[in-house]
C-alpha cells in the first residue's frame, strides 16, 4: 500500500505541474507545441533525454537481460550512446536552424517545403503517425505494468491496481499534463522526471546489492558456475550479425516526431552542445543498472514468465516499501516522460500538418487550432489506451516497438539526411524511399511468423515441456531472437515450461503441436526459409519469435546454417531506402533554384 501512496503523490505532482504551465501559457500553437522556442540548455537536455527514454529503457532492458544476458548493453545501450548524439549533432542542430528561420514546427512542414510537394508530406505524415502509435502504446502498457506490480503485496492474491486501471491512470495523468500544459508543462515535468529516473538506477543497485549476503560477486559467480545460466555473462548465444544490425536502430531516434519536435524548441543552438556530450553517459547511468540487475534477477528469481517485471520484483522483495514506491515512481517517470512527448507530437502533427495545412487555421483562427490540438490529445490517448488493453494479451512491450516503429523510422533517416545535406536529392527520391519503407514494413509484418514455441525449439536443456493454455498469450517476449526460451523455468529439474497462446500460434512454425502437454526430446531448431536463391538464404524466420532475418549465411561448426542467423530487417530497409533515394534523385529533375538557394545557399544551414 505504501508504494502505491508514494506513486500517487508523484502523479499528483505531475498533474499539478501541468496546471501551473497552463496558467503561464499563451493561446497560440507555437507556445503550446514548442513553448515559444525558449527551452534553455540544461532543461533541453533533461527534456530531450526524457523524450527518448521509454518504459523499454528500464523494464524492457532488464527483462531482455534476464533472458539474454549482458550482451543487451552493447546491443542497445552503447550503440545508442554512439548513434543518437551523433544524429542530434548533425541533424538535430540543422532542424533547429530551419525551424528558427522558416518557422517549421514539424518534420513534415520541412519536407513539404524542401521537396516542393504536398503529397510527400502527407505520405510521410501518415507513415510517421502509423509508426508512432505503437511507441505510444508501449508507454501506456509500461505504466500499467508498473502500477500493477508495485501494488501487488507479497501475500496478496492479486494486485490492488489491475493492469487496465494502471494503464488508465497513466493515460489520464499524461493527458492532463499535456492537455493543459502543452510543451511547457511537458518540459517542466521532464526536469523532475529525468532527475528521478537518473537517480533510480544507482539507488536500485545499492539497495538490491546490499540485500544479497555475498554481494554481487557471489551471485555473479553462481551464474558463471551454472551451465544453464553462464551464457548470460557472455554473448555466445547472440549472433554477431544481429549485434551489428542493432547499430542501425538508433538512427530512428531523430526521426521520431517527438524527438525532432523537441529539437525545434531550443532557444539557442548552443543548447545542443552539452546535450550531445552528456547523452552517452546518461544512457550508461540508466541502462547499466537495469541490465546488470536483470542478469542478477535471472539467478535470484528464476522462472519469471513475464521477465519485463524482474526489476520491480527485485525492488519489491529487497527494498523497504517507501523506497520501492519512490523507485517505482522513477520508473513511471521514464514511462510518462516519453509518452507525454509522443501524445504532444501526434497532436502537433495533426494540427500543423493536417488541420492548418488544409485550411483550418485560416477558417477558424489560431485559438481554434489550440482547441483542436487539445481535442486531438483526448482522442488519441483514449485510442492508445484501448489498444494497450487489447495488445496486452497479444504482444510483449519490446516486440511492438522494435518491429513497427524503430525499424521504420531508422529506414526514414536517409530521407532526412538527403533533405538536409544533398542538394541534388529530389521529391521523387524521397517518394521512392518512403514508399519502399512503407512496403517493406508491411511486407515484413506479413512475413513475420507468429511467435510460438515449436516442438523442437529449446536447444538447451534437453527436455522441453510445452503446455497449451488458451488464456495466456502475453509471454511472447519471453522468447528471444536467438531462440532461447526464458531461462530458469523449472530450473531445478532442468525443464523449461513455455505457454503458447493457442493451436494457431503454435502451428505457425509449420509443425503440428499436440493439444495436451507433452514431454519431448528437443532437437536443434530448424531453419525456416522464406526465400532462397541457390545456396543463399535471402529471407528466413527465427524460431520461436518468428522474426524475419535477411541474408543468413552464418554456419555452425557442422557447416549448417544457424536458424537464428542473418541480419535484422532494419538492414535491408535502411540501405534500400538510401539506395532508392540516390537512384531516383539522379534520374529525375533537380529541385528548383529557389529551393536550393533557400536551403543550401545564403545563409548556410
Amino acid at each position: 500500500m505504501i508504494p502505491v501512496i508514494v506513486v500517487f503523490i508523484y502523479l499528483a505532482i505531475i498533474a499539478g505541474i501541468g496546471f501551473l504551465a497552463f496558467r503561464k501559457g499563451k493561446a497560440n500553437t507555437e507556445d503550446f507545441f514548442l513553448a515559444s522556442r525558449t527551452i534553455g540548455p540544461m532543461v533541453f537536455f533533461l527534456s530531450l533525454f526524457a523524450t527518448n527514454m521509454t518504459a523499454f529503457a528500464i523494464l524492457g532492458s532488464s527483462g531482455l537481460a534476464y533472458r539474454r544476458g549482458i550482451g543487451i548493453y552493447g546491443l542497445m545501450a552503447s550503440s545508442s550512446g554512439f548513434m543518437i548524439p551523433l544524429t542530434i549533432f548533425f541533424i538535430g542542430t540543422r532542424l533547429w536552424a530551419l525551424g528558427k528561420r522558416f518557422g517549421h514546427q514539424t518534420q513534415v512542414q520541412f519536407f513539404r517545403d524542401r521537396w516542393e510537394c504536398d503529397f510527400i508530406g502527407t505520405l510521410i505524415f501518415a507513415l510517421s503517425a502509423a509508426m508512432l502509435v505503437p511507441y505510444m502504446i508501449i508507454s501506456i502498457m509500461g505504466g500499467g505494468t508498473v502500477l500493477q506490480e508495485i501494488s501487488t503485496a507479497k501475500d496478496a492474491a492479486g494486485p490492488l491496481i489491475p493492469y487496465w486501471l494502471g494503464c488508465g491512470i497513466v493515460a489520464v495523468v499524461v493527458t492532463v499534463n499535456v492537455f493543459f500544459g502543452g510543451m511547457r508543462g511537458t518540459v517542466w515535468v521532464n526536469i523532475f522526471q529525468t532527475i528521478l529516473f537518473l537517480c533510480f538506477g544507482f539507488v536500485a543497485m545499492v539497495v538490491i546489492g546490499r540485500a544479497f549476503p555475498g554481494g554481487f560477486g557471489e551471485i555473479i559467480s553462481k551464474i558463471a558456475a551454472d551451465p544453464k545460466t553462464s551464457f548470460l555473462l557472455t554473448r555466445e548465444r547472440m549472433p554477431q550479425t544481429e549485434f551489428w544490425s542493432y547499430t542501425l536502430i538508433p538512427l530512428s531516434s531523430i526521426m521520431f516526431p517527438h524527438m525532432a519536435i523537441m529539437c525545434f524548441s531550443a532557444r539557442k543552438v548552443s543548447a545542443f552542445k552539452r546535450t550531445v556530450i552528456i547523452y552517452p553517459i546518461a544512457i550508461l547511468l540508466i541502462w547499466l543498472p537495469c541490465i546488470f540487475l536483470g542478469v542478477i534477477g535471472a539467478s535470484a528469481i528464476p522462472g519469471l514468465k513475464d521477465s519485463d517485471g524482474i526489476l520491480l520484483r527485485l525492488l519489491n522483495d529487497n527494498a523497504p516499501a517507501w523506497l520501492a514506491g519512490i523507485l517505482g515512481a522513477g520508473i513511471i517517470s521514464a514511462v510518462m516522460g516519453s509518452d507525454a512527448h509522443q501524445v504532444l507530437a501526434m497532436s502537433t502533427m495533426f494540427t500543423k500538418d493536417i488541420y492548418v495545412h488544409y485550411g483550418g487555421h485560416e477558417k477558424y483562427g489560431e485559438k481554434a487550432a489550440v482547441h483542436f490540438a487539445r481535442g486531438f490529445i483526448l482522442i488519441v490517448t483514449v485510442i492508445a489506451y484501448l489498444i494497450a488493453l487489447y495488445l496486452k494479451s497479444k504482444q510483449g512491450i519490446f516486440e511492438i516497438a522494435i518491429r513497427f516503429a524503430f525499424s521504420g523510422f531508422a529506414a526514414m533517416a536517409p530521407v532526412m539526411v538527403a533533405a538536409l545535406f544533398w542538394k541534388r536529392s529530389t521529391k521523387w527520391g524521397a517518394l521512392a524511399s518512403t514508399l519502399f519503407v512503407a512496403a517493406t514494413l508491411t511486407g515484413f509484418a506479413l512475413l513475420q511468423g507468429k511467435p510460438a514455441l515449436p516442438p523442437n525449439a529449446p536447444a538447451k536443456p534437453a527436455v522441453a515441456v510445452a503446455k497449451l493454455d488458451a488464456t495466456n498469450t502475453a509471454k511472447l517476449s519471453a522468447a528471444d531472437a536467438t531462440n532461447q526460451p526464458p531461462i530458469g523455468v523449472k530450473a531445478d529439474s532442468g525443464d523449461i515450461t513455455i505457454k503458447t497462446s493457442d493451436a494457431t500460434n503454435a502451428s505457425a512454425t509449420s509443425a503440428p503441436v499436440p493439444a495436451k502437454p507433452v514431454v519431448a526430446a528437443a532437437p536443434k531448431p530448424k531453419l525456416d526459409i522464406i526465400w532462397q536463391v541457390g545456396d543463399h538464404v535471402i529471407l528466413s524466420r527465427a524460431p520461436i519469435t518468428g522474426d524475419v532475418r535477411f541474408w543468413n549465411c552464418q554456419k555452425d561448426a557442422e557447416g549448417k546454417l544457424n536458424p537464428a542467423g542473418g541480419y535484422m530487417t532494419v538492414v535491408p530497409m535502411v540501405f534500400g531506402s538510401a539506395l532508392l533515394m540516390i537512384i531516383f534523385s539522379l534520374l529525375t529533375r533537380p529541385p528548383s533554384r529557389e529551393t536550393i538557394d533557400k536551403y543550401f545557399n545564403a545563409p548556410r544551414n
Partner: protein
Amino acid sequence: MKKFLLLLLIVAVYLLHQDFWNWNSKELLFGFLPVGLAYHIGYSILAAIMMAILVKFAWPEHLEKSEPHDSPTEKKKGDDHR
C-alpha cells in the same frame, strides 16, 4: 584534413563497437563485472569523448546566425495571454 580526421574518428569508434574478441569471454573484472560489459561501459565513455571532440572541432557555428521567423507569438502579442 581536419574533416578527414574527424570522419576517421567517427568510423573508428563505430567499428570498435563490434568487439568480436570479447564475444565468448567469461572473464570477470573485480570479481563481478563481465569483461564484455566492462568493454561497453568504456565504449559509452569513449562515445562521450568523441562527441566532446566533435563539439570542439566541428561545431556548426554558422547555425547560430539563423534569423528568427515572425512567430505567431510576436504577431499576436496582446490577444493571447491568459
